[in-house]
């Protein structure tokens, strides 16, 4: 196995035992970027020299006995909404030409302190306001969408162009591209990971989280990211509960809620089948499947839009007036239309969120986690605008992509998307596990046990080099 193919945990172990040096690993990943980036376009910018230099330093530090932990010497990518001191944060937008970050975001600083090596900044749908990331091709089929908005990060991890990456998630932007590219994406509990120095899309819905190839890798990255950030926006009101990880090899007694409504409505048959198969696997591991009803499902889209659209427009208030022509047409029209949302509607969405949070909290009296498809279908063709469903309805690709992931943003609950198979065209399918507040450990340990039971080593996307 070549170093760029290693999971984070395996690479960390090889570095710790001296079998692999951070320089070898970083060189291998940079060579992989060189080989496949032309067909994928995951990165806005790659900082190869700086990465090699940092890898050399990590190698010397580790040799001198100053090993900082599992992320030391591991090459990674950051979505280009995340500030790194001295570098531009382009948000994949012409609006940000000439931008330079004056200091590190909290997450970039934490990864640096943990010894991770920045390879480059990855593409986002412009300002994270979209679900496709048109600059980037799907790692499994470059003529199909990467998903978004953290498309660059998910594709980089899926293709071996980064050992892990960070994304952001406002309606599904970590989980959607993770599902479409066959990797894991964790949207943590709202506020658990600091957003200081991360360009917002919608303050009350935004989250930062890891994209990795295994659940164990996500545990390692999350451990480096969390911690109080008193000056940061929306730091957690309470610390993570530290619920014990499941350390055994099965899921005996775990109550898994399976939605009767919403999450399997208007879902591609192959996606539903793969997720039902994964649910059967969880049951085979001892989990108890419990049918549940999703509350207020008919208000999910309205609530998401009622919060996100006015908040996004508010954030872009100044540049929408000074340089509207610099925005891409799809983002510009959404920002302009957002000016016409009445304040009363925004408050109604906030009040709806209150009701939804309460109703979802009651669900977790009955179950420990909820399992459902992450995305309604696999990756669409890049020129495809709509999805037609068997009931005759038509839906925009973006609306269909966000439909199943947005509930965890409205409620703030943690959600982990993990790969559960491929469709007939060889495109990845994701299942999401949603937990109660600060139940990240339960989601990740469930994911890990599921992965171990499947026995399949994480597989990189078969990109032709």
């Amino acid at each position: 196995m070549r170093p760029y193919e290693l999971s984070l945990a395996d690479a960390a172990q090889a570095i710790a035992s001296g079998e692999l040096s951070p320089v070898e690993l970083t060189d291998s990943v940079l060579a992989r970027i060189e080989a496949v980036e032309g067909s994928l376009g995951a990165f806005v910018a790659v900082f190869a020299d700086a990465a090699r230099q940092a890898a050399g330093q990590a190698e010397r530090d580790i040799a001198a006995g100053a090993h900082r932990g599992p992320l030391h010497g591991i090459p990674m990518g950051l979505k280009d909404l995340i500030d790194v001191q001295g570098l531009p944060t382009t948000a994949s937008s012409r609006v940000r030409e000439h931008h330079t970050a004056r200091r590190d975001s909290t997450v970039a600083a934490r990864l640096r302190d943990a010894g991770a090596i920045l390879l480059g900044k990855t593409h986002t749908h412009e300002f994270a306001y979209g679900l496709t990331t048109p600059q980037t091709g799907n790692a499994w089929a470059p003529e199909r969408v990467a998903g978004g908005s953290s498309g660059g990060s998910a594709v980089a991890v899926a293709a071996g162009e980064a050992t892990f990456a960070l994304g952001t998630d406002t309606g599904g932007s970590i989980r959607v591209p993770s599902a479409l590219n066959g990797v894991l994406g964790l949207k943590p509990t709202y506020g658990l990971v600091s957003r200081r120095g991360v360009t917002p899309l919608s303050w009350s819905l935004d989250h930062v989280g890891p994209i990795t190839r295994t659940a164990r890798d996500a545990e390692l990255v999350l451990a480096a990211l969390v911690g109080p950030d008193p000056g940061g926006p929306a730091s957690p009101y309470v610390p993570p509960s530290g619920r014990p990880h499941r350390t055994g090899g099965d899921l005996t007694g775990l109550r898994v809620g399976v939605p009767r409504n919403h999450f399997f409505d208007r879902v591609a048959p192959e996606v539903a089948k793969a997720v039902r198969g994964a649910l059967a696997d969880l049951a085979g591991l001892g989990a108890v499947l419990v049918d549940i009803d999703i509350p207020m499902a008919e208000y999910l889209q309205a609530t998401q839009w009622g919060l996100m659209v006015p908040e996004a427009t508010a954030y872009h208030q100044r540049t929408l007036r000074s340089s509207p022509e610099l925005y891409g047409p799809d983002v510009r029209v959404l920002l302009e239309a957002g000016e016409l949302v009445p304040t009363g509607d925004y408050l109604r969405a906030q009040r709806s969120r209150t009701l939804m949070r309460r109703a979802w909290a009651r669900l977790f009296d009955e179950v420990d986690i909820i399992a459902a498809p992450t995305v309604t279908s696999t990756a669409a063709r890049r020129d495809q605008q709509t999805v037609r469903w068997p009931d005759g309805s038509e839906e925009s690709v973006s609306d269909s992509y966000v439909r199943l992931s947005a509930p965890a943003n409205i409620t703030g609950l943690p959600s982990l998307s993990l790969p559960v198979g491929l469709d007939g065209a060889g495109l990845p399918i994701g299942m999401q596990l949603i937990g109660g507040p600060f139940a990240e450990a339960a989601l990740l340990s469930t994911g890990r046990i599921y992965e171990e039971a499947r026995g399949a080593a994480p597989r990189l996307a078969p990109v032709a080099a």
Partner: protein
Amino acid sequence: MTTADLSPQEVARQALRAGIPLEAERLDLVTATANHIRRVIGTLRALDLDETAPAAVYDAAHLVGEGRNDAAV
């Protein structure tokens, strides 16, 4: 309760008042998008919200002293 669609003239007027003069060739697109968004969000008007307070998310304590950071546009 339903949300009445805005006419292109109303959109032009409201946008101008908000400081966004819309060029004539953009007016139909913005109007269609705005009306679609308003129709979707407008369904919330059927909810019985009674005494429900908004969940705005922010912890006021964290707003104190929060300055402009590099993530600003």
